[in-house]
């Protein structure tokens, strides 16, 4: 807040009220007269509000609107939310103006606090068509709370031509990664891009996995506080202090622009960016997983993705569930469109993945293979609060150069406090 805004605070409030009043009135009018075109009665159909985060690929928003319009049993309005989606979603979910149907990541707190409803009944018929790991990632206490829409493996992209010019091979160990990044850093092109926070956010979990450790045990106890994790943090610090990382780029890690515009020779990004990268660079790129660290190390691909959920506060929970069933269970054509027509995503349905021809050749096929062999999934018990704690841990060590042992110990204490709130 700035001081010059202070005197106008009451003004802001009033104009806010006025604006929200107008919006409410407009919404009311729209609800009354907006949809008389089809189906006869205007008041009979349920209204469903569906939220998406902003996908970066062209055509995605139009597609989402098209799917919503194709549903005839209710009026689905799509909200396409740019910026900090998680924040807008969480304030939406505690208020009464939240979404009825929304996409997000698995989170045990949302299930335990009753913000979302179980979806076992609508997924029952096709449960075997989803992979066990996708189902597990969305299950709490044996109930399925979310339906996976897309699987998005994340890995390292590299420019083949630049590696050849530097006379290096794609890295297979973390030491090689540091070395390759050093050799690629020349002529105004940086070696590696890991995002605005130098990888301390997006690589926080993959880094732990790459050392052979786990975040939590199967019975939800802290598992990341190992000597291997400390070793991993030290290696990551070594990479950061090599001064070969691209820092302060205009776009973050999830946007391939820094890579396609030649600011960096390697970048951590996701499968979704592949069509864009192909268009910009042709065949001049390849992918590798995050290399393993230490003796128990293993290469890691992070299987992110989005799932769809139904809010317990939905105006009509059954109508919302029916819509989710229609779109993300029955409409396989639309699911295929969503997964492969814009950015690339792996369809979570086995039957669809087998049919997705665009993902069966070239680098896309390689990505699917990495997803199957080196993929690590979200754990619903690794909550947003714990994600922040682990990212702070990595940031404190890697970016600020604090002591890794004590940071791991601190993070352990804080994660245990978070776990106590759940179990």
């Amino acid at each position, binding site marked *: 807040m700035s*001081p010059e805004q202070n005197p106008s605070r009451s003004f802001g409030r009033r104009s806010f009220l006025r604006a929200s009043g107008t919006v409410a009135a407009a919404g009311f009018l729209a609800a009354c007269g907006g949809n008389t075109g089809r189906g006869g009665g205007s008041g009979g159909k349920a209204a469903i509000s569906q939220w998406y985060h902003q996908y970066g690929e062209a055509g995605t928003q139009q597609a989402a609107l098209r799917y919503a319009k194709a549903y005839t049993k209710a009026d689905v309005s799509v909200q396409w939310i740019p910026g900090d989606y998680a924040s807008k979603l969480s304030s939406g979910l505690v208020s009464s103006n939240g979404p009825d149907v929304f996409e997000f990541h698995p989170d045990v707190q949302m299930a*335990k606090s009753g913000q979302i409803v179980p979806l076992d009944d609508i997924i029952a018929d096709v449960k075997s068509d989803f992979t066990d790991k996708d189902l597990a990632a969305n299950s709490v206490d044996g109930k399925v709370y979310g339906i996976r829409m897309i699987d998005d493996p994340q890995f390292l992209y590299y420019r083949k031509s630049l590696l050849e010019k530097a006379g290096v091979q794609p890295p297979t160990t973390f030491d090689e990664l540091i070395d390759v990044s050093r050799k690629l850093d020349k002529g105004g092109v940086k070696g590696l891009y890991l995002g605005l926070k130098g990888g301390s956010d997006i690589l926080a979990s993959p880094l732990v996995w790459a050392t052979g450790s786990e975040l939590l045990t199967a019975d939800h106890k802290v598992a990341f506080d190992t000597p291997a994790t400390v070793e991993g943090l030290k290696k990551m610090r070594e990479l950061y202090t090599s001064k070969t990382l691209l820092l*302060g780029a205009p776009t973050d890690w999830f946007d391939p622009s820094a890579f396609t515009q030649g*600011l960096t020779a390697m970048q951590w990004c996701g499968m979704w960016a592949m069509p864009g990268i192909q268009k910009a660079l042709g065949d001049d790129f390849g992918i590798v997983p995050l290399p393993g660290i230490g003796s128990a190390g293993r290469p890691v691909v992070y299987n992110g993705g989005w799932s769809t959920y139904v809010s317990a506060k939905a105006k009509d929970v059954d109508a919302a569930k029916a819509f989710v069933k229609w779109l993300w269970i029955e409409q396989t054509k639309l699911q295929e469109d969503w997964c492969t027509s814009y950015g690339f995503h792996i369809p979570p349905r086995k039957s669809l993945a087998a049919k997705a021809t665009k993902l069966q050749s070239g680098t896309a096929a390689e990505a699917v293979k990495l997803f199957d062999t080196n993929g690590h999934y979200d754990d619903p018990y690794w909550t947003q609060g714990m994600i922040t704690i682990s990212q702070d841990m990595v940031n404190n060590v890697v970016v600020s150069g604090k002591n890794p042992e004590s940071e791991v110990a601190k993070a352990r204490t804080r994660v245990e406090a978070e776990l106590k709130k759940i179990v």
Partner: protein
Amino acid sequence: MATTTTGGARPGAAAPPGPAVKARRDRHGVRGSTRTFWLFAGPFLAGLLLFVYVPVGWSFYLSLFQAQNTVTPTKFVGLDNYADILSEGPFTDSLWTFTLFALIVVPLTYVLALALALLVHRIRVARAFFRSVFFIPTACSYVVASMVWKLSIFNGVRFGLANTVLGWFGIEPIAWIGTASPPWYWLVLVTLRLWLQLGFYMILFLAALQQIPKELYEAAWTDGARPGWQTFRHITLPQLRTTSVAVVLLMLIAAYQAFDEFYNLLPNTPYARPPLVYLYYTALGQGQDFGHGSAGALVLSALITMVTLLQGRIFGFGKADS
């Protein structure tokens, strides 16, 4: 609004004058003005109650509960949230961040705004132009300015404005907001805030400078004071005391409320996270931990109140002027 229909507030407009009527009118007038007061102030008081005091009260309620993913919690935890948030951790770290920010930005703004005001005050040509040209940035939004600073001026890649200039002297590109050491992000944060708020405080000082009677200077010169530093030190500065106290207070509160530029310029990193940004991510962000968020917000409010009162004690803000 309903307040425009308060005919009763203008008593006896149609009544004929007369002693008896006059007495009645006076009584009526008192009653009428009370009603007018409530009609005018009522809506705002109701707003204040509804949008300020109810949320503060609710925050206090939430701060005593384990309010995870809900604002109607059921598990009472007493003062545990306060203990958690005050024990060493990201919240206490964030308090240092904003204290450091205030320590840098308040004296800098004070000195530069005063210097600007003195310059603009003495200028003889194009006064209106110089006054508005320094004031205009105040009208710019923090979000927009943050975007300009982040994406064009202090962009970390080689074609950012600052890095292009450095490039002319053969200096390697600097990741202005991407690194913790050296802490270049402070330069970005401080220059942004200076650009945005200097003009506003300059105007306050300018107004105060114009209030200083010319006779004081003339008397000083007659007594042999040299124009320049001596006059400034013994005449101008003491005369600006009231304004200075108000300005420092405003700047301090503004610094403590720092959110926009931190949130928009920097990613969510532990090394540059003032309390409001931390609380935002805890409660409203992905965390949805309203218990700890509320406890932190109340601790922060208490701190700001304390500092303000303390400053009032020391500098005498709010005392009757001379």
